[in-house]
């Protein structure tokens, strides 16, 4: 082991190795941005998706139509287009309006634009997850709650959503893994997340393979970690008889 290793670890290789490790560390630090981006976008998506789903199922006609319009819009546009639309279009308008009215310049960050684009789009997708879960619940429970004197809103909040959200966790973890990989697009605006740092290093060093492998590995790890945590959440919040119990099918005869 020792002699070949010694020849491999010549001063030049050692230098380039430590250089790579340094730049790998730089790329890996992008994980912080990527995770922050995803957490914020998922939260916005949750805050938008939950009420949207409730409006779609229980709301009056005009709210259903409005929710439908929102979903149709954000599901129909690529994330990249949405980011440009927000950053170069929407943000510019806000900035110039702000400058005009208060006289102070306002700069909105690419990070914020990425979060908004990912979050608003995720809201449309998440609303469909929750809507499916709500529709899968036996409708009698909502009726029973109303019969006891619950208002529609409080019946939705205290009876329907706690169940719908539990049922939604597996689909939600799927949404997480999709959103995580969509977040790589944010590099085009210059958000310093994993992909942007990877691109920066490849253009600096003209080496591609190791950096893209590293980026792939980082995304893989984040996916694995997040899905693992959501699985744990699913197990922790599970209630007997609520949602589908896969184990119940284990006793059936195998082919």
């Amino acid at each position: 082991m020792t002699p070949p290793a010694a020849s491999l670890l010549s001063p030049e290789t050692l230098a380039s190795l430590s250089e790579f490790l340094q730049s790998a560390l730089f790329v890996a630090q992008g994980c912080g941005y990527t995770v922050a981006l995803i957490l914020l976008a998922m939260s916005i998506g949750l805050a938008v998706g939950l009420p949207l789903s409730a409006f779609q199922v229980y709301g009056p006609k005009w709210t259903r139509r409005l929710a439908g319009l929102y979903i149709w819009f954000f599901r129909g546009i690529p994330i990249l287009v949405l980011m440009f639309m927000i950053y170069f279009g929407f943000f510019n308008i806000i900035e110039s309006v702000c400058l005009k009215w208060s006289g102070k310049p306002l700069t909105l960050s690419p990070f914020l634009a990425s979060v908004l684009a990912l979050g608003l789009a995720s809201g449309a997708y998440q609303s469909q997850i929750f809507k499916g879960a709500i529709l899968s619940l036996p409708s009698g429970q909502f009726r029973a709650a109303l019969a006891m004197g619950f208002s529609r809103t409080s019946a939705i909040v205290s009876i329907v959503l706690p169940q719908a959200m539990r049922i939604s966790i597996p689909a939600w973890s799927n949404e997480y893994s999709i959103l995580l990989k969509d977040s790589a697009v944010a590099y085009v605006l210059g958000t310093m997340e994993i992909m942007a740092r990877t691109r920066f290093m490849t253009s600096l060093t003209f080496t591609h393979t190791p950096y893209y492998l590293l980026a792939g590995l980082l995304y893989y790890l984040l996916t694995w970690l997040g899905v693992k945590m959501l699985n744990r959440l699913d197990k922790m919040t599970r209630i007997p008889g609520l949602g589908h119990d896969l184990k119940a099918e284990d006793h059936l005869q195998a082919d």
Partner: protein
Amino acid sequence: MTSTTPLLEVSRISRIIDGKTILDDVSLSLNKGDLKVVIGPSGGGKSTLLQCINFLQVPNSGDVFLAGQSARAMGRRNICGFRQKIGMIFQDFNLFDHLNALDNVAVALRKVKGEKKVQARKRAMSELERVGLADKFHLYPSQLSGGQKQRVSLARALAMDPMVMLLDEPTSALDPELIGEVLNVIAQLSLSGMTMLMVTHQIGFARHLTTEIIFMEEGRVVETGPPELLEAGPGGGRAADFCAKLAEVTGR
């Protein structure tokens, strides 16, 4: 309120869904302590009648008065308070699947009446005791038998201190050997003076406890009368015919 005012008065309600008349000019009234039984073939509008009484479905015409108060005059906001005073029991229980027996009973006390958690749970526990399920308080609906589920739903309704109870075929989804435990609770309730309107096919039970039988068919009240109404046998009127047919099937 004078003693002549009925506790619950249903006044000429009709319900039309998609051009189809489900309820046609139905009236009835319950005095305090009454147990009246609604029978009739399925599709006759019995469930719709119960859901119109607490305005879960708004009748197209007519009104419901609880202790002289008009439901129609309530408006959208106050109708929740009106419903709160009317307990409702469903054929398929409709327990909240994410809550254990205790919290199924306590949740409305907290969210509707605004009681503190400890206080609500104490009340819930005493209601579970009343239906004989105090030892099952920690179990979720899926861990209870049908009869136990229905008893939890009775406790849940009772915890709200309803003035009237509406029971929509409370034993129809139960295995035969579990019907007794639910009917026992209902009988006890009736004897303790609870005012109840019950849709059921348990003719034998109905005959013993009820003050009046209401026979419904095709959205109308066809016959009303004392329990003896049912005993005339075939040819003794629509209600008696219906009961004779039921007896043929069940062998009783």
